[in-house]
């Protein structure tokens, strides 16, 4: 390890690091861009889904005969219209209830009809005989031995001896090293606290939407808003029992995802309806359906204990984190546990995570899944501990910060990382020393995310006029087409404007993993650079042919083929455009490709500084100043890097202060709309200042790290720390909504 030079391949850039206009920009400011719900097909039907009004109910029977008989209804589907042997049984069960409805909003049947109103009337005619069962929606309640059990096949994994009774605890994870008890005995000060966080939703403004056009033989097309159209293709093929090759999926423009569009909900349903009706079917979720039946985050409860010496050295740290992940196993308790102490170098550490099922919609990823909740509780204790020791909270963090060559809390040693750099920038930032007004407090927090690589396939064609068409297979959720164009242009030595990127459909490129894990600028970027290099090799061959010299004697510099040296001969350099223009006579089209399961992703760290003001009479919190400092490795398109920083911070502010899933006694979601699920509006937020730190990731030719997810990890704790400082009392439960803050203030009096 660590034996590589500490610099990336390329350090001087022509276009990478500039912020040109995005290729999809004009379409998006003129209304031309086509999103999930914007597509139509001749003969299209409207699909609608009937959803369970019960949190937990056995489905005794479903009678669809009246709906089928209604004029204008072309198909009705239930669980029987899907492939019972599908690979992922949980996804199968989630998209259409089987023996039980497991949450309020769980799909139980669907119709395709000639109009909205006919489809609505048809849903009302479907008769479902439910046997209502006791339900549980709270994570701590679900873990109790006498809780209603959702699945009789879940026996807690990761505990010995293996349980003999089914429970709602799907998995227990444990990570760590050293001797925690010994470590606590060496501590001068120990802080231990319990925390809770509410479930939140990604809150993308575009509801899930798709248009399926499947022939009776099972072949066809699907248009949808998704973070991964290859994933949609493979999953739908499996759920419908058809060959992958029969289905072509095109990713529409996507109106926000943030992790919530990394799985399927309505796509297989639309496909099943279309196959049955023999006509195209469009399904668009209402906002109510998005909240009740897509994939929000886990709610959590946790206990954190950290001990430190008076000099600020952390001697031991322990976390126990419970993640409620909805009706199926898979809550990111493992990721939360691994991330919880990742910012610190610890001799003795133990983190435990529990993956718990409840009668709620199955959680889906949301920007650094699992990490924000863990960071909230850990960084709250870190801030409090620094205060008890009497150390500046940033100094305390620097003293214990993750560094190159040190063992991480989750195991492996860190490679080149930028946490200390973000902390030093924070300490020096004018925000950190600015005076505070009355009822205001300042808080700091760090955050960590792994960042991923993964499977990527990219293709790049040199056009006859010297422009370049770039096809990537990872949906663009934050401006990645611009970043890809920048990297291709950089490598080819041409202008940004000469490259145009598109998101190709599933039949046009090899498999691409989902746009997730902050992987696209890193992995698709790496594949784009390699595809450009592949095409450069071919461009050089063509130049060699034109000069009648050996291809080895041609080099590519500044967008031109040049003779490698005096021995190669004397030739005027040939531009990319010149070589492209004579492609037909030199061997035909010129293209570059690259396929890879990209490794070498670089972990990312951030430090956020927040000022909040608390109204002591009402408990209302207003964030008054916000600064994000994050290591991007190399910022390919700095304006979009800033945009990711700001967007993550804003979502974190919502999570910290007002957003929450509220369930009633009946197990039904009380606030399935933007009126009462309160995401920040423009007047709620201050400007969000940013500082991009660039500590290169050596696993990428340009040093790129992912940036999309880390930005949501620090805000919860940073805001909790600032609110706690302003209110004079430690807030340990999210959201810090006015009633909760006021209660804490009053109880502290």
């Amino acid at each position, binding site marked *: 390890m660590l034996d590589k030079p500490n610099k990336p391949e390329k350090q001087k850039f022509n276009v990478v690091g500039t912020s040109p206009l995005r290729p999809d920009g004009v379409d998006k400011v003129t209304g031309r861009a086509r999103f999930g719900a914007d597509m139509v097909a001749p003969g299209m039907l409207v699909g609608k889904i009937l959803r369970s009004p019960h949190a937990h109910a056995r489905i005794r029977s479903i009678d669809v005969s009246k709906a089928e008989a209604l004029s204008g209804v072309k198909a009705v589907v239930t669980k029987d219209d899907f492939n019972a042997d599908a690979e992922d049984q949980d996804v199968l069960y989630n998209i259409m209830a089987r023996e039980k409805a497991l949450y309020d909003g769980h799909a139980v049947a669907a119709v395709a009809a000639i109009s909205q*109103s006919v489809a609505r009337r048809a849903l009302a005619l479907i008769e479902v005989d439910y046997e209502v069962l006791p339900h549980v929606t709270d994570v701590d309640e679900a873990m109790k031995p006498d809780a209603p059990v959702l699945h009789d096949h879940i026996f807690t994994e990761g505990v010995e001896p293996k349980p003999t009774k089914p429970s709602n605890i799907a998995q227990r994870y444990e990570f760590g090293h050293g001797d925690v008890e010994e470590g606590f005995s060496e501590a001068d000060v120990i802080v231990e606290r319990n925390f809770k966080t509410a479930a939140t939703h990604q809150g993308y403004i575009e509801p899930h939407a798709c248009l399926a056009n499947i022939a009776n033989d099972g072949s066809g097309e699907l248009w949808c808003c998704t973070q991964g159209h290859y994933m949609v293709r493979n999953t739908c093929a499996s759920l419908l029992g058809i060959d992958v090759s029969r289905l072509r999926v095109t990713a529409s423009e996507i109106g926000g995802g943030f992790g919530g569009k990394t799985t399927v909900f309505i796509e297989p349903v639309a496909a099943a309806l279309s196959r049955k009706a023999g006509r195209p079917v469009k399904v668009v979720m209402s906002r109510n359906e998005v909240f009740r039946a897509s994939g929000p985050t886990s709610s959590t409860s946790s206990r954190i204990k950290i001990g430190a010496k008076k000099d600020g050295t952390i001697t031991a740290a322990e976390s126990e984190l419970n993640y409620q992940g909805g009706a199926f196993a898979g809550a990111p308790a493992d990721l939360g546990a691994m991330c919880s102490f990742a910012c610190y170098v610890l001799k003795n550490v133990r983190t435990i995570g529990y993956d718990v099922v409840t009668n709620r919609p199955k959680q889906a990823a949301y920007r650094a899944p699992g990490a924000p909740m863990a960071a909230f509780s850990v960084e709250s204790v870190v801030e409090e501990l620094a205060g008890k020791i009497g150390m500046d909270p940033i100094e305390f963090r620097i003293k214990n910060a993750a560094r190159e060559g040190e063992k991480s809390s989750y195991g492996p040693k860190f490679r080149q990382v930028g946490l200390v750099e973000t902390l030093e920038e924070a300490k020096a930032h004018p925000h950190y020393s600015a005076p505070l007004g009355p009822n205001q407090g300042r808080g700091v927090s760090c955050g960590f995310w792994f960042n991923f690589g993964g499977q990527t396939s990219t293709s790049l064609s040199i056009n006859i006029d010297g422009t370049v068409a770039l096809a990537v297979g990872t949906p663009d959720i934050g401006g990645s087409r611009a970043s890809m164009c920048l990297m291709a242009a950089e490598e080819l030595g041409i202008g940004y404007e000469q490259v145009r990127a598109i998101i190709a459909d599933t039949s046009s490129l090899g498999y691409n993993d989902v746009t997730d894990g902050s992987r696209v600028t890193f992995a698709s970027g790496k594949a784009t650079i390699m595809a450009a290099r592949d095409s450069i090799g071919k461009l050089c061959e063509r130049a060699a042919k034109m000069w009648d010299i050996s291809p080895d004697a041609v080099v590519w510099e500044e967008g031109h083929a040049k003779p490698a040296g005096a021995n190669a001969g004397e030739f005027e350099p040939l531009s990319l455009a010149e070589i492209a223009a004579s492609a037909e006579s030199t061997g035909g089209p010129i293209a570059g490709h690259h396929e890879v399961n990209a490794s070498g992703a670089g972990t990312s760290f951030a430090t956020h500084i927040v000022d909040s003001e608390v109204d002591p009479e009402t408990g209302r919190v207003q964030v008054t100043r916000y600064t994000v400092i994050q290591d991007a490795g190399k910022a390919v398109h700095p304006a979009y890097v800033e945009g990711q920083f700001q967007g993550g911070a804003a979502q974190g502010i919502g999570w910290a202060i007002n957003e929450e899933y509220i369930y009633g006694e009946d197990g039904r979601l009380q606030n399935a709309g933007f009126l009462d699920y309160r995401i920040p509006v423009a007047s709620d937020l201050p400007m969000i200042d940013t500082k991009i730190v660039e500590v290169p990731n050596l696993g990428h030719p340009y040093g790129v790290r992912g940036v999309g997810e880390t930005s949501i990890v620090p805000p919860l704790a940073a805001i909790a720390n600032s609110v706690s400082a302003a209110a004079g009392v430690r807030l340990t439960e999210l959201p810090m909504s006015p009633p909760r803050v006021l209660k804490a203030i009053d109880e502290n009096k």
Partner: protein
Amino acid sequence: MHQVHVSTKINGDEIEYLCETDETLLDVLRDKLGLTGAKEGCGSGDCGACSVMLDGRLVCSCLVLGAEAQDREVETIEGMADGENLHPLQSKFLEHAALQCGICTPGVLIATKALLEKNPDPTETEVRYWLAGNLCRCTGYDKIIRAVMDTAADMRGA
């Protein structure tokens, strides 16, 4: 269900359509007229993605019945640019990277255009409150606010 015949003006064009009485103006624009620039984010007036101008007033088209548009004038995002010349707000949004996914962008642009026509010199706070009904989940609003302030300054100077 019986349909209502409506004659109206959309982006300056005389338009006629038939709609069901419970269809919204947004449904009509998107599904009947193919004007899909206005988006449905909530269907309840809480997100602003369907913003259009109705007789010179900024409204959510999801809260207007299609039948109500009789003899009215509707302006949508499709009518904002003048041929191939973008409106200054559209250009500034691109320059400032004031959009990420772009789903809220048509609504935000319609709303800010209405603001600047009413108040050419708004403060940051005025812009933020005016846009409180236009949810954006990607940007944290920072670059949107900057783009609006910058456009306003430019348009005042012009």
